[in-house]
């Protein structure tokens, strides 16, 4: 046995050598550094840690194991997915080809590609969400709609910056401030942008307490911020049970492309409210949600291979994502101001910013800013109405974009 030869072979096959010997291997080092930064943000700064830790580690794993020309040990193979999406390739839409060549993270990614994980996350979100505040004040739905402004402005901005229509639609949906919706739409329209879009969506969702308050202060007067809202009416159990059935029926009939998201959201909510499926509701809220979160986060992180991620497009997406969040907040506040004026000053416009989805963080920001100006003001339950309306609004916006650009 030639020990020197074996050692040389091991050395040449190692990732350390690959950093310097393969084409663009040094870029993996940058991605590994980015993964470390994301881990720091998730663990130390607690920015959406449940997702960011998984995304960061998925990014780390794929960039430790995948190098161009050395794909045999890779956990994620971007070229397999390029062939999967290339209509001219013999492996176009061939899951068989994926399964026979896949690494572990490729298997996980099949759930993203097929739209399974985002829908299951919506099932869990539905089971965790109390739509009572929305039912007590249905006008909150208007704020959920107003706060989708950033989606469409960012879409337009992305086209101006040279993105294609499907890419621009995927970038715009970041403004919906809803991670699963952004992932769902992006895997359908622009899967090559999944990494930067998911990172932008989740990072900005975590930064909502920093992004929103300056916009809220700039757009409202002190008098508006001090408005105390009257206690909302009670909501009956019957209303809560009927709500998911009614929403699923009307929204899916109106926009069939929203069916996976709205269908799962409302199914989860029905489990929660109907009173006879407590075990299913518990599983959807906890075990299922946690399992899917692990698969979703690591597989989304795995798509952040250096060759895809390190480009000017990523910087443009990060910028457009911030614009989308800011404008969506402004749109919701504008809606709130209109309701303040039309209600004779009885509605606090600060609840409008909660229409950007991001449950419950955006509602908490409305509560915190409101209390800063009137310490006896409790806006949380009033803000939860637009907040959950935003989840429905962003799913409708995604459904529209999918209907237009989904082919």
């Amino acid at each position, binding site marked *: 046995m030639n020990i020197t030869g074996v050692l040389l072979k091991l050395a040449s096959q190692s990732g350390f050598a690959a950093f310097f010997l393969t084409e663009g291997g040094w870029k993996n080092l940058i991605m590994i550094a980015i993964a470390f930064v994301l881990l720091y943000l998730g663990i130390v700064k607690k920015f959406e840690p449940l997702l960011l830790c998984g995304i960061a580690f998925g990014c780390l794993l794929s960039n430790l194991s995948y190098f161009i020309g050395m794909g045999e040990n890779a956990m994620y193979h971007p070229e397999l997915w390029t062939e999967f999406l290339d209509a001219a390739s013999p492996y176009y839409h061939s899951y068989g080809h994926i399964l026979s060549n896949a690494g572990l993270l490729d298997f996980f990614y099949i759930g993203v590609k097929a739209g399974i994980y985002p829908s299951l996350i919506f099932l869990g979100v539905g089971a965790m969400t109390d739509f009572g505040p929305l039912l007590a004040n249905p006008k909150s*739905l208007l704020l959920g709609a107003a706060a989708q402004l950033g989606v469409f402005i960012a879409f337009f901005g992305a086209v101006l910056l040279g993105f294609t229509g499907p890419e621009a639609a995927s970038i715009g949906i970041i403004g919906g401030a809803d991670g699963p919706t952004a992932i769902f739409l992006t895997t359908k329209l622009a899967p090559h942008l999944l990494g930067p879009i998911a990172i932008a969506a989740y990072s900005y969702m975590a930064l909502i307490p920093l992004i929103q308050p300056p916009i809220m202060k700039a757009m409202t007067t002190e008098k508006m911020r001090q408005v105390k809202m009257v206690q909302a009416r009670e909501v009956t159990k019957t209303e809560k049970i009927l709500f998911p059935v009614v929403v699923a029926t009307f929204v899916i009939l109106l926009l069939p492309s929203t069916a996976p998201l709205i269908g799962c959201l409302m199914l989860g909510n029905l489990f929660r409210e109907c009173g006879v499926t407590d075990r299913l509701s518990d599983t959807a809220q906890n075990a299922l949600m946690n399992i899917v979160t692990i698969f979703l986060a690591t597989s989304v992180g795995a798509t952040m291979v250096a060759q895809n991620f390190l480009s000017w497009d990523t910087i443009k997406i990060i910028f457009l994502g911030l614009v989308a969040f800011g404008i969506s907040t402004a749109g919701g506040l504008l809606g709130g101001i209109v309701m303040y004026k039309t209600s004779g000053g009885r509605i606090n416009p600060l609840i409008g910013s909660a229409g950007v989805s991001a449950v419950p963080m955006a509602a908490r920001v409305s509560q915190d800013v409101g209390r800063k100006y009137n310490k006896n003001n409790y806006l949380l339950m009033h803000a939860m109405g637009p907040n959950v309306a935003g989840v429905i609004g962003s799913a409708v916006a995604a459904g529209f974009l999918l209907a237009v650009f989904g082919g």
Partner: protein
Amino acid sequence: MSDLIHISIGAAGATALLGYAVVFFALVLLLGVVSLMGLFTAPKKPAEKAVGGIPAPERSAPVLVTENLAPLAPGTAGEVKLYDTDPRTAAMLMAIVADELQTPLNELRFISIREIKEEDQ
């Protein structure tokens, strides 16, 4: 299809406007349906009565119905329901909340106080 992939700025603007309008339309439709549903299923408003010259509680608040309703002390908002909580602990909690909010106790309204046990969490 190619028109949509390499979309013109004019078409992008029109798509954005149309999209925002569709979101509004869908949610306004939903608002109508939910409001209609509320008309049939929302709880009926309780009749307001003054007891012993004291104004009745706010409409949205749950009403405590008892056989022999004693007149309430002036300034009080009603009775608080206690679950697994002794009156002394409840009194202390209410005092702490009032102090924290810097609001007189008789301006606050406590509906119920319940001890949250570990298995409830």
